[in-house]
């Protein structure tokens, strides 16, 4: 059964996303909405990790596996500056959150196949928040893009 591989992937991706949210928060302190919200969203990701723990305890977590390992995405190395830098950083977060989101979807499929109610409950609680994270990133980027790409120096 390969579910433990995906649980490992999910657990790790949430951790990477949390770290990256924190990094963007710290790197963009002059954008208060980004600064404060990214902190809150980082905490959300860590909550997701905690929620996964009892599931991982049951199924085990495989950290190393050949094929899915390629899906692991690295977090942000460091943040950029300026209006376009903000946009790029948010876009990186968007990619990381997309990976988390689709992984939740895969895990949900497996949970349904396994009729694992506990896992389904975890997915329902967390996946909605991840998709809201994506929507927020999209909302914020749509707001920032015209100014950054047209008017900013």
């Amino acid at each position, binding site marked *: 059964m390969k579910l433990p591989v995906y649980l490992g992937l999910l657990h790790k991706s949430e951790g990477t996303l949390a770290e990256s949210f924190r990094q963007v928060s710290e790197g963009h302190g*002059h*954008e*208060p*909405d980004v600064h*404060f*919200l990214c902190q*809150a*969203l980082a905490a959300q990701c860590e909550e997701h990790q905690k929620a996964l723990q009892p599931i991982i305890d049951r199924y085990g977590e495989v950290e190393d596996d050949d094929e899915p390992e390629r899906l692991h995405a690295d977090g942000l190395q460091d943040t950029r500056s*300026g*209006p376009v830098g903000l946009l790029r950083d948010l876009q990186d977060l968007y990619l990381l959150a997309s990976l988390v989101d689709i992984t939740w979807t895969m895990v949900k499929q497996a949970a349904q196949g396994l009729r694992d109610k506990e896992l389904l409950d975890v997915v329902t609680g967390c996946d909605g928040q991840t998709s*809201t*994270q994506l*929507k*927020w990133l*999209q*909302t914020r980027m*749509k*707001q920032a*893009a*015209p*100014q950054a790409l*047209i*008017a*900013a*120096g």
Partner: protein
Amino acid sequence: MVDRIADIWGTRTPYARDERWPVRVDQVLAEGVRESEVERWVQSACVLCSNGCGIDIAVKDGSMVGVRGRSMDIVNHGRLGPKGLFASWQGVNNKDRLTKPLVRENGVLVESDWETAMERIVSRSRALLDEKGPLSHGFYTSGQLFLEEYYAQAIVGKAGIGTPHMDGNTRLCTATAAAAMKESFGSDGQPGSYVDIDECDAMFLFGHNMAETQTVLWARVLDRIAGPDKPRLVCVDPRDTEVARHAEVHLPVRPGTNLALMHGLVRELFVNGWIDQDYIDRHTMNVDELRTTVEQWTPEAVAETCGVEADDVRRAAEIFGTSERVLSTVLQGFYQSSQATASSCGVNNLHLLRGLLGKAGCGILQMNGQPTAQNNRECGADGDLSGFRNWENPEHVQELADLWNVDASVIPHWAPPTHAMQIFRYVEQGSIEFLWISATNPAVSMPQLPRIRDILSAEGLFLVLQDLYLTETAQYADVVLPAAAWGEKTGTFTNVNRTVHLSEKAVEPPGEARSDLDTFLDYSMRMGFKQLDGSPLLGWATSEDAFNAWKECTRGRPCDYTGLTYEKLRGGSGVPWPCNEDHPEGTVRLYRDGVFPTDPEYCESYGHDLLTGASVGPEAYKAMDPAGRAIFKTAPYHPAHETPDQDYPFRYTTGRTVYHFHTRTKTGRSPQLNGAAPDVWVEMSVNDAESYGLVEGDVVRVESRRGHIIAPVRVSGIRDGSIFAPFHYGYWDEGVAPSAGHRAANELTITEWDPVSKQPVLKNAAVRVEKVADGAGASSAPTTTASRPAGRGGGRKPALPTAGGPAAQAQETIAPVPPPAVATKEEHS
């Protein structure tokens, strides 16, 4: 005669539930002017708070010499508050008024003429549009202009220039009211009416110090309280306000914890079955999400987080849950605090759970802070699309393009309108280089003033300012345009409960001052903004032309003005919208039928996630299929982002006093009002003052991570651990440069905003206090209001009671005529 500085709310006229509030006509004339000498009384409504009292302006020898309340007006039944009585005319008729345009020459503002000033504006504007495009332009307007002026400004900005960077200081006062109604009901539009005060059994005031912010509305409440079957009052406010003193339950929550309290109240309704399941089933959606979110918020959990008694939470919920008719009002204590939109939606949720909406005595008043804030929201000078249209709905955008006869692609609709704080951020980053500020004073009113001053003085910024006076903000302008004031121009405006008033020109503006409408029309003409057929974008000659154009813009929208004309508004009372063929006399309450404007084709917004501000978007919204149902919106509680710690152990909150409005440009020039509250103070509780060794009047330095102020202490009834400062005091009358001064409450506030309404969080920051000097006497804070002294003053001589003396005498005529009937036929159905 009554001293209306000492007796803020005037003489009581008690009345019972379902009776009409008796008339009391309040009048003040300038010293030495007798009533028989008044040549004309000119119809208007008051602009010194958001209440919208009908007022007549007394004119003699071409000057305003006093005012009286309009007895037939459904808003005030003849009454006026201290600001209306003393500042409306004296705040305008003043030697300090700007009478000529000013332009900056060699770093100094010098007197000029309109031709020079406008040509400077137009040449900079045109050059930037050619070089950088519309995103280089921003507009920051007011809650003080007239409807016609906002509509002109909205068209100039959206269809002339095509910039999304338009907002007003309404973002600081009323953005959350609009946002909460859009989220819950699908559109802006006040559900309730002031007449609900006459008919309710219980009133909840959420973060709303009505006694000081809308004194005439509070007089209506006091008259109910003095009557035979008084309403039960619940007050949510960290200060010991007049409202709190009359409340059966006072919940002095820690600043920043409103949402936890709302969750607790909502939970009590569920737990005790105080809900109307039939109403919920037929007229709402998402109740299960609400139930899940509030589940953990027992009264004990609320008590722990908010610092209130668990039993008080239970008692408050019981009053809400068991009273037949409940009226709720909400203001800055919620709007300018943490999780503003979610907390304010919490009030909507309480009413929806019980179906207490759209019927007698059962209303919600999501209040406004300013007299014409509503019109800014309607017209879209705050960035919203005109007529409560939805920027995410292409058909709505096309409707505006058709109305204005321009290409739809010019109208910015690709992203949410840029909110004020973001506009200033773009100025800070240099991507907005042309900023036009009208009738507002951000150098005193915005958060974190040291930063705002840096932004306003940024090199490369071309700053236009339009105002009555040389304000603190004017010091930074490249061009200052002298504006005609209230009473010097004709136009309409709309108050909190949708009542539209006509305000007629009573006197000529001083010198070369011009109405804001004329200035915007002149700019549009000089810029050569055109319709598709080549005719001028704005071809209006008069304010009535603008009003007629606006009516067409509202046709079929929730704020339908099509049944109104200047003529209809002349002579009688103001009229609440919608006013159209179906409602020829206006509409007292919205949502009588439980049908809400949430239909995807009709709604003003598809809504947001209240925790993050993420847009729901058209697809997800349509999939929800709200079909005229209201939506329970909520979010999990999250602590405020800046909470007290070892270095900054106090919670800092800011607010108003009854005697002043905004940055005192008008009220500071009324001797009666200025005398009542001449200078800044900070409030501390009895316990906190004692533990810091402070007594009444001692001078302290209050410091946050962003700046500090120096002010005398008023030991007041504020809750322990919190410090309050009034935000009115700036530097224009202090004789110091703003950058050297330490008087403005916003030196300390934080740059942060609600994720949905984008309203700045002005009521929550962490500060520390240290004593800098012994006081010479008591502080000058008013003794008549929430700033009333508490404790024993540490042995210091007590503060003198606030009074106005002979200059503050107003005439009150009680019940000269029967009260006005509330206008409409549905009232009787």
